[in-house]
C-alpha cells in the first residue's frame, strides 16, 4: 500500500506555550535507519513519543505501514523500543524481561523459550538469562533492552539515545552492533541522538531537527556536503561562514565581497549581482601556503592569530582582512606560527553557498 514504513504528516505537538514539534512531515522507508538528530530540547523525544503513542499530536497524522495509528493505543502499534535508561523491569530476570512481550502475546512456553534464547544469542548474552538487571553492567543491560525490543519482530525499532548512558568506548562498540543487527534483521529503525558522529556513522538517512522543526533530511553525505541551512552546516562538523554580496558573475566564477575582501566562488545557478550570499567551508578543506606562492580569485592572505597543536592535526585561527576570522585545520606538522603571514586558498568546489543566504 505504501512505500513508507513510517509517515509523519504535518505533526504538531505543543506543551502549553512550547511548540515541541512544529509541522513535522517525514517519510521513513522500509528497512531504513533514520536518525533524528538535533540539539537538546529540539523535540526529538517528543516526535518519537508521538510515534509510540505516548504523546497524542495536536495536529497531523502518523502512519505506520500505511495504517493511520494516530488514535491507536501504544500497545497495539507493534513497535519495539530501546530506552536511554534501559527501562528493564527490575523485578524480572534478563530472561523474563525478554520473554515479557511474548507472554503478553500469548505464545506457548516452548515457543517463548526458543525465541528468548535466540534473542539472547543475537545480543551475545546467552549465559545471562538468570541475572537480574541490577546484576548486569550498563552495556549488558542495554543489550537485554535490545533483545526485549527485537524478540517479537516488531515492525519498527525505536531507539531514544540508547548509548548516551554508556561510556565512550562501549558506545562505539554498541553503535556497530546495533547497526549490524538492524541490517541483518532488515528492520526499519528510528534512532534519536544528539551525537552527530553517531548519527553519521549509523544512519541511512538523517533528519536534522531544530526548535521543533525539521531543517533537512538526507543521507549523511548529503547532510555533510550540502547542508540546507546555516544551522545544519554549523551543527554537522566544523564550518567557517562567509557572508557577503555578489559583486560580479564572470562565467564559472562568482565574485563575492566579504567585508573588504574579494573572494571567488564557483558560480551557482541563479546567482546575480547584489545578492546577499552565505557560503561555508570546512576547516580541513582550506589550503595554507607561504605568502605569494599561490594566486587566483579564491586565494586570500591573512595572519595566524593562534595555533594549537592537536597531535594528528594543527588548528589555526587566521585573521583575513580586518575582521574575518577563519578556522583552518591541516594535517601533519606545524608550518606556521602565531603572527606569521600566510596565503589561504578556499577551493572553489569546496566553498559552497547555503540556500542562497539571507535575502
Amino acid at each position, binding site marked *: 500500500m505504501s512505500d513508507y514504513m513510517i509517515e509523519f504528516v504535518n505533526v504538531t505537538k505543543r506543551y502549553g506555550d512550547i511548540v515541541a514539534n512544529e509541522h513535522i512531515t517525514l517519510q521513513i522507508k522500509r528497512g531504513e535507519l533514520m536518525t533524528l538528530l538535533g540539539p537538546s530540547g529540539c523535540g526529538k523525544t517528543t516526535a518519537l513519543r508521538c510515534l509510540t503513542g505516548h504523546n497524542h499530536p495536536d495536529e497531523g497524522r502518523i502512519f505506520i505501514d500505511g495504517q493511520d495509528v494516530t488514535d491507536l493505543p*501504544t500497545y497495539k502499534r507493534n513497535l519495539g523500543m530501546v530506552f536511554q535508561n534501559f527501562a528493564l523491569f527490575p523485578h524480572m530476570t534478563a530472561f523474563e524481561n525478554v520473554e515479557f512481550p511474548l507472554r503478553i502475546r500469548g505464545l506457548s512456553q516452548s515457543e517463548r523459550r526458543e525465541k528468548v534464547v535466540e534473542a539472547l544469542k543475537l545480543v551475545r548474552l546467552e549465559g545471562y538469562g538468570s541475572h537480574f538487571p541490577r546484576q548486569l553492567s550498563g552495556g549488558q543491560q542495554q543489550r537485554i533492552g535490545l533483545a526485549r525490543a527485537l524478540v517479537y519482530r516488531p515492525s519498527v525499532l525505536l531507539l531514544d539515545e540508547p548509548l548516551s548512558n554508556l561510556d565512550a568506548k562501549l558506545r562505539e562498540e554498541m553503535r556497530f552492533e546495533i547497526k549490524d543487527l538492524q541490517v541483518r534483521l532488515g528492520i526499519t529503525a528510528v534512532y534519536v541522538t544528539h551525537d552527530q558522529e553517531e548519527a553519521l556513522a549509523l544512519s541511512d538517512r538523517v533528519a536534522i531537527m531544530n526548535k521543533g522543526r525539521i531543517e533537512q533530511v538526507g543521507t549523511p553525505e548529503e547532510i555533510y556536503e550540502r547542508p540546507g541551512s546555516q544551522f545544519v552546516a554549523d551543527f554537522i562538523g566544523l564550518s567557517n561562514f562567509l557572508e557577503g554580496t555578489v559583486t560580479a558573475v564572470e562565467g564559472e566564477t562568482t565574485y563575492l565581497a566579504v567585508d573588504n575582501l574579494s573572494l571567488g566562488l564557483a558560480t551557482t545557478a541563479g546567482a546575480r549581482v547584489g545578492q546577499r550570499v552565505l557560503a561555508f567551508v570546512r576547516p580541513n578543506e582550506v589550503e595554507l601556503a607561504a605568502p605569494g606562492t599561490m594566486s587566483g580569485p579564491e586565494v586570500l592572505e591573512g595572519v595566524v592569530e593562534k595555533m594549537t597543536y592537536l597531535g594528528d592535526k594543527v588548528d589555526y585561527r587566521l585573521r583575513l582582512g580586518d575582521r574575518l576570522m577563519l578556522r583552518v585545520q591541516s594535517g601533519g606538522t606545524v608550518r606556521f606560527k602565531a603572527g606569521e603571514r600566510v596565503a589561504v586558498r578556499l577551493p572553489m568546489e569546496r566553498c559552497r553557498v547555503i540556500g542562497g543566504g539571507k535575502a
Partner: protein
Amino acid sequence: MNSFWHKQREGLITLVLLSPGLAGFFGLFFYPMLLTVILSFRPEGREVGWTLAHYARFLGDPAFRDVLGLTFSLAVGATVFSVLLSLPLALVLREKPKGNRLFRLSILLPMMMPHLISALGLLLFWSKRGWANLFLLTVLPFLKEPVAVNYTIPGLILFYVWLFYPYTCLTTLASLEALDRSIEEAAEVAGANRLRVLWHIVLPLIRPGVLAGSVLTFMMAFGAFSVPLVTGGNYRPLSVQIFTQATLYLEWSAASAMAVVMAMAQVTFLTIYMRVLRRPIA
C-alpha cells in the same frame, strides 16, 4: 593516655545530654511497662505472690478469646479494605489530576484530627437519620429502611478504614511516585495494555510499599482505642477491654495481663514492619 581521658569525657557529655530523654523513657514508659508486667503476674489486688491465672483466663476463657478474635478481625478487615481503597486512589492521584493538592490534603484529615472527633463525626454521618442513610434512601429506591451502620461490626470496620487507610495510601502513593515511568512505557510498547502493565509491572514493583503501609494500618487498627470506645457499643476490642477491666471492674492485674499481650503483639508487628520496609525490591 590523653586520648583515653578525652574519649571518656566525650562519652560522659553524651550521656549527660541523653539523660533527660532516657529519664523520660524509663520513667514514663519502661518502668510503667515493667510494673504492668509484674502486676500481670500478681493475684488480683495483691502486692505479693505470683500467678499465671490472668494469662490462663485471658487465653482460655471463650469470652476473652472473642475479644482477641474481634480485635484481629477488625484489624484485618480494616487492612484489606484500606488496600482496596488505597490502590485506585493512589493510582489516580499519581496522575496529578486537577485539585490534586486538595485530595492529598484530605487524606491527612484522619491522621491529623483527634480520633475522638472523627468518631463523633462518623457516628453522626452514618446514623440511621444521618446524611449517609439519607443519601442511600434517596438514590436506592428499593431501600425502604435506613441501614444500621453504627455499633455494628461492618460499621466498625468502615470507621477503621476511614481512620487508618491513610497509612496504606500514603506509602502506596510514595512507592508509585518513586517508579520510573519509562519502565511502564517499555511494557506498553512491548504490547501490554494498561491493565496488564498494572498487573505485571506496577503492582509487583510497589508491593513492598503497599505491604509496609498495610502493616502500619494493621498496627494502628489493632491498637485503636478512642474510636472503638466511642463507636463500638457492645463490641469491645482489646484496648477497650483493658480500659474497662481496669476502670470498671477494677481488675488491674487482669487488665495488665491483656496489656502485656497487646504490647507484645504490637512489638511483633513492629518488627515485621521493619523487615518489610527494609526488604529491597525483587
